[in-house]
């Protein structure tokens, strides 16, 4: 298995994250979220560390990691593109937007581009239906996106 987090980082993770949450009630979710934030993923080496430190089996941890789409085993791209596929956006042509992005970035829904710049993440309704179709890029929301302007919206992120 490929490793994404080195020994020094693991030690830091134990000191700064696991020890912070260790004695809290049900600390697993927060710890997993911290890993996702820090490393863009929750790889096996981090899951093994959590398992040893908290005495939770890897099967259970991996169950949680694979259950939630916000966690991934391999690092996600520098930018996360979330094309909303909720009902309203669907009506507004979200599927076409997804195809457009897939073609433009040469990737697939739910995957990361080879250069590691983008992840086209699975995204359900983001709750701003009146402004559909909605596309989230990282924390920023873009409204009334169409297949005509989607590429322009992506452009600035390509270089960053």
């Amino acid at each position: 298995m490929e490793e994404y987090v080195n020994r020094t980082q693991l030690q830091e993770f134990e000191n700064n994250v696991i020890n912070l949450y260790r004695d809290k009630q049900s600390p697993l979710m927060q710890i997993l979220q911290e890993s996702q934030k820090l490393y863009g993923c929750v790889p096996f080496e981090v899951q093994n560390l959590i398992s040893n430190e908290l005495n939770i089996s890897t099967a259970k941890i991996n169950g949680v990691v694979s259950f939630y789409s916000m966690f991934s085993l391999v690092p996600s791209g520098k930018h996360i593109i979330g094309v909303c596929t909720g009902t309203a956006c669907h009506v507004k042509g979200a599927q076409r937007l997804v195809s457009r992005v897939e073609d433009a970035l040469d990737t697939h829904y739910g995957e990361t581009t080879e250069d590691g710049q983008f992840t086209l993440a699975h995204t359900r309704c983001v709750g701003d239906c009146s402004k559909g179709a909605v596309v989230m890029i990282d924390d920023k929301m873009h409204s009334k996106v169409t297949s005509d302007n989607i590429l322009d919206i992506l452009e600035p992120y390509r270089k960053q």
Partner: protein
Amino acid sequence: MKMINLKINGKDIKVPDGKNIIEYTKDLNIDIPTFCYDERLKSEGACRMCVVEVKGMNRLVASCATPATDGKEIYTHSEEVIKARKEVLELTWASHPNDCVVCDANGSCKLQDYSYEYKIDSIPVYDGHKRDFEINSSNKFFEIDPEKCILCGLCVNVCEQLQGLDALGFSERGYKTYVSFAYNAGMETSNCVSCGNCVSVCPTGAMMEKTEDIFRSWETTRTRTTCPYCGVGCQFDLVVKNNKVVQIDPAPGTPNEGLLCVKGKFAFKFINHEGRLKTPLIKENGEFREASWEEAYSLITEKITGIKKEFGPGAFAGLASAKVTNEENYMFQKLFRAVIGTNNVDHCARLCHASTVAGLAITLGSGAMTNSIAEVKGNDVIFIIGSNTTETHPVIGAFMKQAKAQGAKIIVADPRKIDLAFGANVYLGIKPGTNVALLNAMMNVIYHEGLYDKSYIDSRTENFDKFLESIKEFTPEMGAEICGCKAEDIRKAARIYASGNKAAIYYAMGITQHSQGTNHVKSIANIALLCGNVGKENAGINPLRGQNNVQGACDMGGLPDVYPGYQKVFNKEVQAKFEKAWDVKLDDKVGLSLPHILNGAYEDKIKFMYIMGENPVVSDPDTTHVKKSLENLDFLVVQDLFVTETAQYADVILPASSYAEKDGTFTNTERRVQKIRKAIEPIGESKPDIVIIQEIMNLLGYNQGILTSSQVMDELALLTPIYKGISYSRIDEVGLQWPVKDKKHPGTKFLHEGRFSRGKGLFSPVDYIAAQELPDEEYPLILTTGRVLYHYHTITMTGKNKEINEIVPANYIEIHPKTAALYNVKHMDKISVSSRRGKTIADVHITENIGEMIVFMPFHFADGANMLTNSALDETCHIPELKVCAVKIDNKI
């Protein structure tokens, strides 16, 4: 208790409050279909098959997860209920492969049974998407086929809640969900121990045993019997097709509650193994040849008569067996005592719990587990010292984990960081042989902090003041120095143990196999008495017995100093009783114990030995000496299933039948006498040991009727007070725990209630005395020995299973990384290790779970650990110091 009124299917019942609806329907023999329900688990409520109609509620409810409340009217098979169940089945069926005709589970599949019962169409109503998963066959004993999985979650929950492992889990979600080991990788990356309890509960063909035998459930017969491996005494069913055991299924209830371990569940291939002895063998010119029973018998009787004439009965010795039944052990010692005329009978209990039998008899009056296996789950403190319970008594280990999940505190003292030490409240990594120092230091803390039970000490014990002198000055710092652990941890352990109201100690060979073994046991008794933790439910002293019937072999007088029921051979009254019953004169002198029998053979004093189902060439310390002793005998009879390492030295080998081929009883570690039942015909010309012994007795001129095992039980019950109330009819369903005082007595769940067997509990001052052989310049490492989960003792049985041999193929040695660096050896290097007595070869296993300069080796392998071990004996009980000796690493090979 609050009672509630319920009306189920029109029938009024009044029942105690507090259970879910399904529990009450069971009492009425109403069969509610379930996939995910198991009374041992928390209700999952996942499958919805158990839905019922409750009047007044606007929807159907899952009866497994809905508490019954007073006045409710419940319908379990109404039209609406049937319709809903059918719907559940239709939906499940929609994504299940329609391949019953070739499925291994055909005939033992709940989905199939219910689909038939609820009349589901063969073509799915909902033409669902069949899922596309790969079969995970990474486990050597079973495979997981997620396509056949209905996601009931039983396997995951059993693994988590009962086995305490969590090796299995759900991956992904929704439609893509499947059961797997972590990361969807192989079992080898998980903590799976192949107990197979997941396989046993799977309602479909999703988890199937790998088997070379093809069988349908309706072609097989099932026979309830007792496991032949460790002392837990698990109950299971032998599944037989054409006189061959093809599968083993755990039985619910006492004592294993439907759980098994890898050995009990999967290691049964020895029964029908091609290597089984099929005829007697006689050695001629150094070679074995097949012989008839008549020929073998006449040779044996001729030798016995001749040697007895020339040298007298004192030249004979017999090894009874912790593997055969009570009845067989009874007859074996009767053969030696009544027919041959000697008390030279012993067996391998000498090597395991002789110090327990001696130490606890002195202090409490009875040398057995004080409590029951079921009580483990009621403990609030579990102190495990010198027992690797999850490997040696796996089901008890699982119960300990269940207790821990319920909040019990765990203390582990062991030279190795064993499985139970992970997540324990305190782990004390003590040096081998330093138990007394640890216990004395703990008692020092308990005394000085006033945590002892004064009223208990006053009313139920004696000799406290004298004992106090021995611990008063022994500080935790002194203990820590000797044991090699932290004084603060000793204090913590002492406080936790003393704080428990239901604190139980579990120990095994780590306490007993020392030249100070009896004192180690006395020390255990001291700490339990000090805290008032014995003679109560859920609190006590629990020596875990290693073999299926080692308790029974001791109970039956397979020991040189006692008749059955621990009645001393030198007690005139007892002697008179047995002389009358057996109609012979009996010897009142204590016979030789196992090490002295072997020494006697070495020194030409013992001429004739009869070894039944034991393998001392592998199990006893100092192999070289054992071999020389056996070689020196005039005549050796070995009775076994296979030509063992010991049988190689025999003059005659008699083929015995395995536990699957005979009736009888085993007594498990909690003193429970349980039945074994014949499931197949004897292999070849082999005979049950009980038949062989009785036939030999008759040929020697003793008038011994050929009794069935049930009749033998009746005979021995008359002579053995602790077995007095036992008969086959009483133990047919559930075994009884001795003492069973009469035919109405219900057996004894825990010992010493209100009064100790000896009257008062005896405190014994015990000083720490080091092991006899300590590391020095020439032999700088301490070797300690033990067992592994997958193998059993001298591997005569487990070694006949290919998969088991693949997992643990050869002798190995565990070494700390720093020690390994010192000798420049790497993981999986083959090295030569030697002690003052011999040399052996082992694969290096590097692990941080053992102390520096301490090494561990399993004793399973021939010419392995016991080439090195020390045969120094405990003075009182003659147990050898198998747990500590000094060794050195010679070189890489």
